């Protein structure tokens, strides 16, 4: 991430993402049934249809923020009355639509025929998608996924599967297309293989120094959101892992003089990826892992890969609806973080208190104390916003990060 020249994986990513968005627009323009989804809606479902495509507003918003136009888009939404206290992803998405996506790096997303939200990452996305439902006069399907204080129970898995089947029926009705189970199963298999390769890539962060930074994982997670259920996931994550292994051999490492191994908790600060990674690298600090990307392919209470028995794809995708941090309560998150902190040999944790994401941020103050007490390692809380750069102060954040590093040094001396 700190290198100016794109790596092979970086080039492959760009190619995939550009092609992905162009295909989406092209197919939609030719009459494909288009669905907008929350990130953890199982997109494999759409592969079970001949001509259904999907767009992910959250991913598009992250891309806008990463390209430096997040604030511009937010302001457009604010000018139409949306509060600055709302999630910046939502403001970017709503703002983007106010002028026909004229500033979007991907020409926006094609107009949907249906929006599907999911409330276990955050319930607010349902309110956000209601805005589209009203403005565009399209149906809004809400996937209701019970919050987890403990691992997903059978009753909830059954409840989720029944909703997935209701969604399939709805799409059949609205699109006039029939659902094909075999195609769907194949797509689920592709996602599963993708997760396996993703985990292989993240495992390399155990190396000291690590060939992997959290910033790499933030950037490279994108295909999972927008190209889920496709064979490109496995291919791309394989390239990524192989490249990282090569970098170990050649010494082409993101933070060559890695003095501090850190862990990041919360969504990526999309507008700061390059700047932050560079500045940290200069300080000898490598954020080697993040809860946001470690959770992909896992379930409650652990960041180890959830192994699919390759039997019932509905059961698997219902299980995977909890493959994120926000659906989990404090104890499950604590358990997951403990495991990875130990595994990666973490020296300190950065809790990014994210103004735009209460589901992720609310239990962080307790987590900070618990992690710090359990491991005897320092943890710091910085104020960020994942997509609204106005709510982030670089100097403020780095003052605290600097203090974190000093505390690590001081503990080492003692």
């Amino acid at each position: 991430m700190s290198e100016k020249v794109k790596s092979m994986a970086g080039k492959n990513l760009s190619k995939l993402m550009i092609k992905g968005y162009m295909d989406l627009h092209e197919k939609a323009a030719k009459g494909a049934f288009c669905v907008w989804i929350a990130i953890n809606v199982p997109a494999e479902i759409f592969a079970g249809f001949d001509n259904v495509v999907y767009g992910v507003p959250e991913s598009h918003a992250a891309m806008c923020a990463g390209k430096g136009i997040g604030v511009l888009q937010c302001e457009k939404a604010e000018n139409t009355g949306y509060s600055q206290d709302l999630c910046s992803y939502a403001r970017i998405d709503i703002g983007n639509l106010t002028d026909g996506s004229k500033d979007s790096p991907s020409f926006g997303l094609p107009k949907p025929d249906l929006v599907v939200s999911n409330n276990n990452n955050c319930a607010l996305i349902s309110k956000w998608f209601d805005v589209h439902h009203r403005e565009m006069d399209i149906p809004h399907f809400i996937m209701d996924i019970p919050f987890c204080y403990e691992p997903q129970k059978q009753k909830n898995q059954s409840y989720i599967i029944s909703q997935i089947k209701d969604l399939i029926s709805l799409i059949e009705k609205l699109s006039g297309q029939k659902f094909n189970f075999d195609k769907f199963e194949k797509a689920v298999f592709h996602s599963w293989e993708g997760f396996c390769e993703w985990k292989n890539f993240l495992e390399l962060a155990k190396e000291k120094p690590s060939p992997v930074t959290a910033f790499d994982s933030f950037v490279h997670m994108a295909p999972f959101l927008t190209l889920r259920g496709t064979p490109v996931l496995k291919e791309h994550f394989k390239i990524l892992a192989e490249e990282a292994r090569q970098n170990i051999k050649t010494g082409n490492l993101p933070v060559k003089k890695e003095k501090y191994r850190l862990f990041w908790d919360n969504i990526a600060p999309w507008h700061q990826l390059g700047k932050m990674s560079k500045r940290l690298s200069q300080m000898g600090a490598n954020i080697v892992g993040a809860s946001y990307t470690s959770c992909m392919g896992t379930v409650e209470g652990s960041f180890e890969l959830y192994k699919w028995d390759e039997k019932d794809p509905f059961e698997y995708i219902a299980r995977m609806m909890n493959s994120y941090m926000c659906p989990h309560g404090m104890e499950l998150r604590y358990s997951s973080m403990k495991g990875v902190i130990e595994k990666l040999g973490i020296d300190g944790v950065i809790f990014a208190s994210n103004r735009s994401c209460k589901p992720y941020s609310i239990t962080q103050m307790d987590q900070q104390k618990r992690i710090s007490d359990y491991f005897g390692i320092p943890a710091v809380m910085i104020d960020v916003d994942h997509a609204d750069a106005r709510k982030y102060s670089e100097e403020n954040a780095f003052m605290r990060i600097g203090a974190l590093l000093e505390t690590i040094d001081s503990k080492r001396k003692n």
Partner: protein
Amino acid sequence: MDFVKAELSADGGLDNGKVILMKEKSVENQIEKLKKSGEKVIGCFPLYPPVELFASMGLVPAVLWNLKKDVENLSLSDLHLQSYACSIAREMLEFILSDKGDMFDALFAYNACDTLRNLPEIVVSANKKAKRDIPLFNIHIPQVNRQFSDPSQYIENEIDSLIKKIEAHFDTAFSEDTFTETATAYSLMRNLIQEAEILVSKGKLSFLSFCETVLSGYTASAKEQIDNLHKLISKASDPVIKRKKKIIISGIMPPPLPVIEKIEDSGFLIASNDIASLKRTYGYSPAVTDNPGKYYADLYENSFPCTTLLYQGDKRIKAFFDLIYLSEVDGVIFAGEKFCEYEYFEFPYLEKELKKRGIPYLNLEFGTDDRENFESHFTRIEAFAEMISMHAVKTNF
């Protein structure tokens, strides 16, 4: 005048449409009173806990909002929650973690919102550290669109499971007959509230005394609240001052009492409300049945719509504008609660539609710091009153 400490009481007096300051009842005092009379109390996270069920099983439900008077500061809450969490959540957490939390025999939570669903574990963890053994029960209330999915069996199973947990913990037994009696009492209570609301809309009762009475019911038994409502209704009389500007107020909580007083003093008549702790709670009573699962499946499906019940998005918009049409209002006041994003997401659409209909509106916002110094709100309310008068002149002209 420091309204937070006001001691004037309207007990025994007539409410002739003039604003009368009621003695602000403290939630802590009300719960203390219940405990002294031997009651068990279950502290319920807002907004819509299954109060009838708890009451029928020997637990007086105390719904934990309207706590500004009870929490002087947020020193305990601030150890756990960032300042951008909503004010209701912060005040509730402060109350529960303080010594006042010792009064509860149990706590209850459900998936009311992204913030509240994360609080149970913070509470349990803090209580464990404080060696406080207070069980916390929780259920999941389905949020699927009823037009696409049917969650009634899920709700019934959740209620059934909740009953079993309460039975096990309190060594008690659920009774269908008692549940029926309790549900009937709550139904009567809601009918009385609606009767009182009509009196407010005619100017025969003040909205301020109405709010005070209804909100105090969240920490009272149904029987006591029925008595309170009868007393309130008996105070109704023809208005001395005819208020001509009809409005509805919308939000999660009513504005602080001094602000309500100002609204009424400015000549506004509160024709109705779309407030979570008021009409969205009392606006619907399910058909009484001895089956709590079916009762709550009915309640959550058909309740007066709320922004926090995700599947009610369309119904909520319709209900809001039906209310405006039926009440023939001149304007709307939004009482926003910082930082309730559920409400914030809908304001722009509602405002746009109000503008289309030529209905003026005022957006006020209240947070944890809004206990006194309401002057800026007062100025805006006065300006809004003038605006409505001008609007009426233009319309008539």
